[in-house]
């Protein structure tokens, strides 16, 4: 039984140390609360100013804010947060701020209502405001307009309160005046509506129509999403206050990071970002041209207000961060919400608190601020602020004209006023929509506003909808498609409309259509949706198709079996739907196509995959026969078929029906892939008649390649005494090491004691430990394997390097084997282990870092190959993902926390990074960080960054493991080096020179190694060969410094005889990858072109400090040769793309 508590804890990415008061305990100096002193720390882009709009004492602790159509700012304010004390009255308030004279400073504060318990969201509307507070969504009405609530109504109840910074929050009116709000990962909500009970476990965004109480989940997941907004065309975005993926593009119905029980999720657009809170898409005449459509959000930990620019990329978007709106080092500046104001300025809610979060710092910590709070107002000096429109006093026709306003604020608020005027506006709306000038720029957006008003008033207007579905603006078509979903029951032929949209030329229109089809519960819906597979399918579309196929599965699967639908005989469409929905009953329709030869070669792997995963014995028989008949002519197909049969057996213990001995012919195949797979199958199926054949392969000293290993595996699968004897004989023989090793590995399951003895014997001869790692891993992956090994090591001596490798393997397993560690340490005669510091030692270490630690030297330590830090940790977008991204580590973690994390990695494991250890019913052990769990599989990520899927029905036991971070990683560092390393980590994201900026810099590189083959290859051809993909060239992954520089001194030098004088310097070669979303020009910026030659793909580039490059869509390789006799400067390469053009970026990751 999976314990959800443990499972969830793995997901949560809130910074947290198991001991309270760890992370922020260094904070001793509480700054004076003078707002002016705070303001002086703000750094803004050139041409921008910031002024104080409102501050304590008239407001305190603003959590969320929203403007009303009158231009007044409503604030949810809580002094009770994080936890009500016994006996304390709930006194929290909703405040309304009024700037009476329009000078950008609030003049009057109204207490609209008080006596609330931690209100976390407010949206003015319907004669008062909606408030999220504790378990309830409330509405307060002001009957006489004095800005004091007269009535309170419970609108919805049953929201969870498991964490007070996760409770119902982020209220926002959508483009069609539906109310959106969020809940976060720990929350479990159960809400009664007249339409039925709605439940949501973990995070998600709700969509709600207050007048009829229709409530649905709009998207699932996100750890703690405190920002939702819609662009001019209603495309939806969210930020995550505990996730690290920046801006999330929200596909309706999709699941994002940490959605509960989601088998598959979508990711944000800026992986490697710090946490972000609040979101507002800004624009209008007050802001400069290049800020139009910018996304503003807050990095409340790093004291920054951030700006992102998004560009279209396929059916989704590419997002790039720009210079900050505000950057500060004031420890209490905590921007949490951002809204565009009626004057075109940007308003920022500053929660003002030196202490954030309530997980790791005590609820009652005296440094928690409960009384301060500010609203800041950012203006652009290049333009006047705007006159505020008097929307509520406008006649309806004039108000409708505001929907064409260049001001996004005005358009939004005008719709709010129109909506509240109700159906009386319909005649005016009709007339206004008819009068729109279709020659005018933005006409389609104005029509869309009219369509949204109809949707807001829940009146179907088909003609307007049709005109938008057929208009020339793709964004407007996509938005109109979404409206079809809302009106599906009241339109003549919604499926007809969607069939057109699903083959639209624009991928996002196709995506919206695919998602709307998922809401129309008819068998044809899935057939129509799958037509989107005929055009280009990117990740977002693929996900949407998968989701729609799953959502509709209860409808289309029976219809397929009854023959009501057939996907037009298209094997690819059918296979995609079947695979998505995990269907078993419908596989025969797929095998029929397979037998009839109607599956193209390109679709075959996908089709076989589905049959292997879900097929019955009869279905598998067909695959089996296909494998045999293709064995000689089409070995690729045959091997794929056999592999799918292996999978079916391994995952579900299903074998083909009928006689299996014909497998013999495949074993005899000349094609090693076919033969190896067949040998494995012989063992998996335990075919007695084929035993001699398998033995012959194992015993044949001449066989090589993959066949001996396959034979050993097969022999072990037979499992008899005879099989064990044979493996033991080979393990103890003098055959080549790979053969012996394969024998030992396979012997473990059937004769563990002998296997352990043979293993110890085997490694005694491996001086450098080569190949020992897979062997040890195999022991650790068997129940009791470690104990056997421990016993076998008693009184033995093994080479030190072998012991080191074995210890590293133990760490990477995420499990604890103290006896084995002791045995290895003794046998290898080495010393190592976690270091636990006393309070005095810790104090001395902290002082050492502060006094002698140097971040620059520390970065060099971090980069050392033997520490392999980058293997698991990224800084920004480049590096491994096994461990936490360190991009803003220094901004949040304090020195003692860092020291502990390095010296004793298990003391404080960051919550995303606990491991689980899984025991299967076959006695296999898997361990890794839990990535997610689907209906059928648990997916883990191991220390090698590989994802492993363990079928749930094979899991017998699950238990929490330990950190994958190696203990003793810094044992060989001096005190100076250790102090430097910690100084570096503590500088990350805190000191400007160790903060990753918004520029696009190449950070992930491969460097050419000076192997004999490399030198030979370059000598035979030219240096240009380094730009080729020649397999003999050996490359190694390296990463830039945080600054973006590649240190030349760290690069190996290649000296090609004859080209380099004996006393001269050689060459170094680096390459990186560039991904272009569409055809585009970009500029490469170099710190200097001296001594460089370069190739884009294999074409030489003429390099200057700035070089224009032309890119076709897709991935490109940039190779740079460095003449070390000329160049001594480090290398830095940056990319710039024109605004608005398709995205171009360096490829990051591990």
């Amino acid at each position, binding site marked *: 039984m999976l314990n959800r508590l*443990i499972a969830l804890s793995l997901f949560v990415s809130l910074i947290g140390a198991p001991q309270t008061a760890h992370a922020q305990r260094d904070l001793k100096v509480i700054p004076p609360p003078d707002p002016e002193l705070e303001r002086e720390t703000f750094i803004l882009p050139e041409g921008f100013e910031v002024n104080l709009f409102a501050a304590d004492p008239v407001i305190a602790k603003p959590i969320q804010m929203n403007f009303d159509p009158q231009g007044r700012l409503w604030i949810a304010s809580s002094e009770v947060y994080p936890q009500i004390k*016994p006996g304390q009255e709930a006194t929290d308030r909703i405040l309304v701020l009024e700037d009476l004279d329009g000078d950008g400073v609030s003049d009057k504060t109204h207490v609209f209502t008080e006596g609330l318990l931690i209100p976390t969201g407010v949206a003015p509307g319907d004669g008062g405001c909606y408030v999220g507070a504790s378990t309830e969504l409330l509405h307060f009405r002001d009957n006489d307009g004095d800005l004091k609530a007269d*009535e309170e109504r419970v609108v919805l109840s049953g929201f969870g309160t498991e964490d007070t910074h996760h409770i119902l929050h982020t209220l926002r009116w959508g483009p069609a005046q539906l109310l959106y709000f969020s809940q976060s990962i720990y929350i479990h909500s159960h809400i*009664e509506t007249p339409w039925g009970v*709605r439940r949501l476990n973990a995070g998600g965004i709700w969509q709600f129509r207050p007048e009829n109480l229709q409530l649905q989940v709009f998207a699932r997941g996100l750890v703690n999403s405190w920002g939702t907004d819609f662009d001019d065309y209603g495309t939806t975005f969210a930020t995550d206050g505990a996730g690290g993926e920046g801006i999330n593009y929200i596909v309706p119905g999709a699941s994002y990071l940490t959605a509960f029980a989601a088998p598959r999720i979508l990711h944000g657009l800026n992986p490697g970002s710090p946490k972000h809170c609040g979101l507002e898409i800004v624009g209008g005449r007050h802001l400069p041209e290049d800020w139009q459509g910018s996304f503003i959000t807050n990095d409340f930990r790093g004291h920054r207000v951030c700006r992102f620019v998004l560009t279209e990329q396929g059916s989704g978007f590419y997002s790039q961060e720009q210079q900050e709106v505000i950057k500060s080092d004031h420890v209490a500046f905590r921007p949490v919400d951002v809204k565009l104001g009626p004057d075109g300025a940007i308003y920022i809610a500053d929660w003002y608190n030196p202490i954030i979060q309530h997980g790791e710092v005590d609820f009652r910590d005296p440094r928690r601020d409960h009384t301060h709070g500010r609203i800041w107002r950012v203006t652009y000096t290049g333009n006047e602020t705007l006159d505020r429109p008097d929307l509520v006093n406008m006649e309806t026709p004039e108000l409708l004209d505001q929907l064409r306003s260049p001001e996004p604020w005005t358009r939004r608020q005008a719709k709010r006023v129109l909506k509240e005027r109700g159906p009386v506006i319909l005649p005016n709306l009709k007339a206004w929509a008819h009068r729109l000038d279709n020659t005018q720029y933005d006409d389609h957006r104005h029509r869309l506003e009219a369509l949204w008003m109809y949707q807001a008033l829940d009146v179907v207007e088909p003609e307007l909808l049709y005109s938008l579905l057929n208009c020339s603006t793709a964004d407007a078509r996509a938005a109109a498609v979404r409206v079809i979903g809302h009106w599906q029951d009241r339109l003549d032929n919604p499926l007809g409309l969607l069939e057109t949209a699903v083959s639209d030329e624009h991928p996002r229109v196709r995506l919206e259509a695919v998602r709307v089809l998922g809401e129309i519960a008819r068998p044809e819906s899935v057939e129509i949706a799958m037509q989107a597979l005929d055009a280009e399918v990117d990740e977002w579309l693929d996900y949407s198709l998968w989701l729609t196929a799953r959502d509709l599965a209860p409808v289309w699967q029976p219809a397929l079996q009854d023959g009501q639908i057939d996907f037009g005989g298209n094997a690819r469409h059918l296979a995609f739907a079947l695979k998505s929905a995990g269907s078993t009953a419908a596989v025969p329709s797929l095998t029929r196509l397979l037998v009839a030869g109607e599956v193209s070669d390109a679709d075959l792997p996908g089709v076989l995959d589905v049959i292997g995963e879900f097929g019955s014995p009869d279905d598998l028989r067909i695959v089996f026969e296909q494998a045999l008949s293709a064995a000689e002519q089409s070995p690729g197909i045959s091997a794929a078929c056999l592999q799918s049969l292996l999978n079916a057996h391994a995952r579900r213990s299903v074998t083909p029906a009928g006689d299996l001995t014909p497998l013999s012919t495949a074993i005899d195949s000349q094609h090693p892939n076919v033969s190896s797979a067949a040998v494995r199958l012989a063992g998996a199926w335990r075919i007695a008649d084929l035993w001699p054949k398998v033995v012959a392969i194992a015993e044949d000293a001449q066989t090589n390649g993959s066949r001996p290993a396959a034979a050993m595996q097969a022999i072990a699968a037979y499992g008899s005494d005879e099989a064990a004897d044979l493996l033991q004989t080979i393990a103890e023989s003098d055959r080549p090491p790979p053969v012996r090793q394969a024998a030992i590995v396979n012997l473990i399951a059937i004769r563990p004691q002998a296997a352990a003895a043979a293993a110890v014997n085997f490694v005694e001869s491996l001086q450098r430990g080569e190949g020992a790692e897979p062997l040890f891993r195999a022991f650790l992956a068997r129940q009791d394997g470690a104990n056997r090994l421990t016993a076998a090591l008693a009184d033995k001596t093994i080479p030190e390097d072998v012991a080191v490798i074995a210890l590293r393997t133990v760490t990477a397993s995420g499990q604890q084997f103290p006896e084995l560690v002791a045995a290895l340490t003794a046998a290898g005669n080495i010393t190592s282990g976690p270091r636990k510091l006393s309070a005095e030692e810790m104090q001395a270490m902290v002082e050492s870092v502060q006094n002698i630690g140097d971040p620059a030297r520390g970065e060099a330590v971090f980069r050392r190959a033997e520490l392999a830090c980058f293997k698991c940790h990224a800084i920004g977008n480049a590096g491994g993902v096994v461990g936490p991204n360190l991009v803003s580590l220094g901004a949040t973690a304090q020195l003692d926390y860092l020291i502990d994390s390095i010296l004793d990695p298990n003391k404080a494991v960051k919550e995303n990074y606990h491991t689980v250890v899984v025991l299967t019913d076959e006695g296999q052990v898997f361990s890794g960080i839990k990535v997610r769990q689907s209906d059928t599989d648990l997916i883990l990520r191991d220390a090698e960054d590989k994802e492993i899927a363990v079928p749930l029905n094979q899991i017998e036991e699950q238990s929490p493991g330990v950190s994958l971070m190696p203990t003793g990683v810094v044992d060989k560092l001096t005190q100076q080096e250790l102090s430097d390393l910690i100084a570096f980590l503590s500088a990350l994201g805190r000191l400007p020179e160790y903060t990753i900026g918004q520029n696009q810099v190449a950070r992930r590189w491969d460097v050419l190694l000076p192997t004999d083959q490399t030198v030979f290859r370059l000598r035979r051809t030219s240096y240009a060969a380094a730009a080729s993909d020649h397999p003999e060239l050996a490359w190694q992954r390296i990463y830039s410094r945080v600054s973006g520089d590649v240190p030349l001194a760290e690069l190996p030098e290649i000296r090609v005889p004859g080209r380099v004088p004996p006393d001269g310097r050689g060459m170094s070669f680096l390459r990186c990858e560039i991904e272009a979303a569409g055809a585009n020009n970009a500029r490469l910026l170099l710190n200097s072109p001296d001594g460089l030659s370069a190739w884009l793909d294999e074409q030489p580039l003429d390099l200057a400090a700035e070089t224009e490059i032309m890119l076709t869509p897709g991935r490109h390789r940039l190779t740079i040769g460095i003449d070390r006799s000329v160049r001594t400067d480090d290398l830095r390469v940056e990319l710039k793309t024109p605004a608005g053009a398709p995205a171009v970026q360096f490829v990051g990751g591990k």
Partner: protein
Amino acid sequence: MRNILGCLPVILCLCTAQPAAAEFEFRDGDRVVLLGGTLIEREQRYGYWETALTAAHPERSITFRNLGWSGDTVWAESRGIFDPPAQGYARMLELVGELDPTVIIVGYGNNEAFAGESGLESFVAQYNKLLDDIDGEQIRFILLAPLPMEQASSPLPDVSPYNDNVQLYAAAIESIAAERDATFVPLTMPQRESDSERGPTDNGQHLTAYGYWSTAPQLRAALCGGADGPALDPIRPTPTGRPPTDLEGSAATLEDLRTTIVRKNELFFHRWRPQNITYLFGFRKHEQGNNAVEIAQFDPLIAEQEQHIAKLRSSLAVSQ
């Protein structure tokens, strides 16, 4: 006077629907636990039911603990938190055991009724199981019928199919009550008064302050047959849901009693369903578990309110 007339149809209707089961009576010292979904949960924020039952017997000590949870069912579907509902169910039973009730008011059926006839059998089985699982032979059960919805105007849904189902579930609960010798209370939705701005609900489904006030007589009639304490007519909430102002004498005491009950309920809510449970008792208790000591500190505060309730109740008896 108008108020009393307004309630008359309801009382008449109750009289005709009154079941023949053995008359229920609260006893001095009764500890009452309420279980159910939103119907029960939301009572605690208005307190009219509890006030009506408390005031009916001013000389008897009866305490109430509300364990309602929005969206809940007889399977405890709302109570799993981080665990499956079965564990929430077990926790609910454990909590009921700790509270050691003598009377349990069960208010399930409204959410289950959405499943209609096809869900009825499993509902009845689980309802019985719940009553079986609540250990204690001394406990007297009061089973409330699910409340039908009020037909609100469009755009809210047509409630008649749902109300047909509610009738089905109410009848099933009535049979359960008969089989187990429990008390059945056939709740009905009060009629809207023609001259009233507001009815008992504002969404057709959930009782408002006025709704709890106007249904309280149904509970009193069913559960406090020969009671002589004051009814709630003098503290009828205003159309906006606020309590009446300028109350005097026993009416003021009655309203005081109600607000004290609400305060007690709020404190008890923080006691049994505290915010931040993840950090206090859950899987992140290694971080804030030290603050869990605060939660027990609600107990004396609740006891203090109970004393206050007892004092107000007694003074009602005196003023009778």
